């Protein structure tokens, strides 16, 4: 019996890649997250939606501890990845971030060559093998469909790329360190529709291998690519369900108001 329960626990954990347990976040005295419980599934795309300032980014950045440096930041509760509390003292934050990649709202390539951008995450791990790095850079750029566009200019500055290409480069850079989770904070909000479509396509392909959490203000986007959607409002998780269900038949009035554009 006990064994069975362990196995059950383990599969549950595996299904629930990310877990938040009664999480509260404070910026000084201001409570930005007001006690959220949430389980995020492995190899699915989960979208965070909600009006500006409701705490989506704050909540997202808990999973790779990017809030740690923010002045006045304080957290209560637990965040678990694969069942492990990542806010425990002995957790190595650098190691954690190799497992949990992040893509930002504005493309933010380093002011270096395309090659250096992708290789950086590996180099800081102490990997020096040139052939390995070259292969890995090529593989990552192929994964995001950028290889054919840039293979001639691999040593040129990444800042010369278009916004959409830069964002795909940033995704490639994240993939190169082989995370299992990718957090995306409005990754297409600074891009044109064609680049956006390319990146949506890419995200959709990535879910085979990665657990993806994406913040978006674009309802169509959330509906198109995500398996699950979470609606946040004023630091609270109002509704969290399969995207199909949430967008067609939400349980809560607030959710319906938001997705139909009646507020926010």
């Amino acid at each position, binding site marked *: 019996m006990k064994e069975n329960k362990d196995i059950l626990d383990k599969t549950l954990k595996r299904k629930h890649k990310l877990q938040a347990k009664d999480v509260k976040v404070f910026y000084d005295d201001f409570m930005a997250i007001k006690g959220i419980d949430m389980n995020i599934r492995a190899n699915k795309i989960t979208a965070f939606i909600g009006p500006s300032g409701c705490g989506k980014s704050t909540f997202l950045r808990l999973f790779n501890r990017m809030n740690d440096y923010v002045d006045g930041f304080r957290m209560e509760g637990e965040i678990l990845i694969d069942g492990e509390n990542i806010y425990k003292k002995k957790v190595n934050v650098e190691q954690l971030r190799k497992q949990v990649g992040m893509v*930002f709202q*504005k493309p933010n390539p380093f002011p270096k060559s395309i090659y250096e951008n992708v290789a*950086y995450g590996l180099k800081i791990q102490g990997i020096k093998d040139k052939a390995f790095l070259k292969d890995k850079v090529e593989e990552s750029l192929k994964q995001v469909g950028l290889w054919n566009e840039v293979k001639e200019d691999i040593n040129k500055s990444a800042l010369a790329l278009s916004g959409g290409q830069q964002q795909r480069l940033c995704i490639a850079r994240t993939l190169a360190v082989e995370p299992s989770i990718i957090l995306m904070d409005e990754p297409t909000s600074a891009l044109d529709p064609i680049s956006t479509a390319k990146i949506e396509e890419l995200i959709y392909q990535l879910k085979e291998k990665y657990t993806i959490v994406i913040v978006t203000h674009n309802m169509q986007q959330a509906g198109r690519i995500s398996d699950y959607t979470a609606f946040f409002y004023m630091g609270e998780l109002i509704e969290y369900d399969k995207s199909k269900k949430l967008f067609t038949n939400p349980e809560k009035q607030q959710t319906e108001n938001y997705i139909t554009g009646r507020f926010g």
Partner: protein
Amino acid sequence: MNNIRTNRLKDQAFKFWGIACTFLGLILLTIFIGSILIDGLQRIDWDFITSLPSRKAERAGIYTALMGSVWILVFTTIIALPLGIAAAIYLEEYAKESRLSSLLEINISNLAGVPSIIYGLLGLEVFVRIMEMGASVLAGSFTLALLILPIVIVATRESLKAVPKSIRDASFALGASKWQTVSQQLLPASFGGILTGVILALSRAVGETAPLIVIGALAYVPFAPESPMDEFSVLPIQIFNWISRPKHGFEVNAAAAIIVLLLITFILNGIAVYFRNRWQSKLK
């Protein structure tokens, strides 16, 4: 209607005022440099640069002072650069917001405004006497290093601040440690700005006279320094010394030495501009 007209008039008036001010500055500078060139240029030749000091104006050269300045410049850089950049990195990237760090900050800004002769007194007491360095190149370099330290720190901090937060985010998110982020992203990205600040600080150090006189640098040294513990003179002191002599020949020497000093400053500034431009174009 009227309003537009008066505005335009004010606009014009300000434009002329601005042009006038600019020209006044340029004219004064031209007169200054022109008169020095007229006085000194005839005196500058290889002999003047390679000769040792002498009591005869026609035979005196700037060799020892020039070498003294070079030695001072090199050692000041060696001392001030690592200290200043490390302090700036600490304050900008590591120090938490606290009473102590804001106290440090205010004091560093204030230090930049302390008269240089005070640094001389500090150097005299601490380096020359307590640490028993004597009136050596090393004591002079430490004194000048202290003097330019605030400038280096402020310049480095400004350059670090100018690196967008998104670069830090990107680096941290890939699993880089703080030091990796500083050394591999922030310092390279702010290198141009730091270098400009450092070189401008150094060109100030080359021109400093008072603190070095206070610590006991001599106007007359028979030989160029051969080690950091040797006595030294520097160009500005040599110039000061020559100007204060009654004989006309020395005045000419002073003018010639000023040209050399100006040249060094211009070259330093030129290097700063070159690196800044190169760095900016590399970032594009």
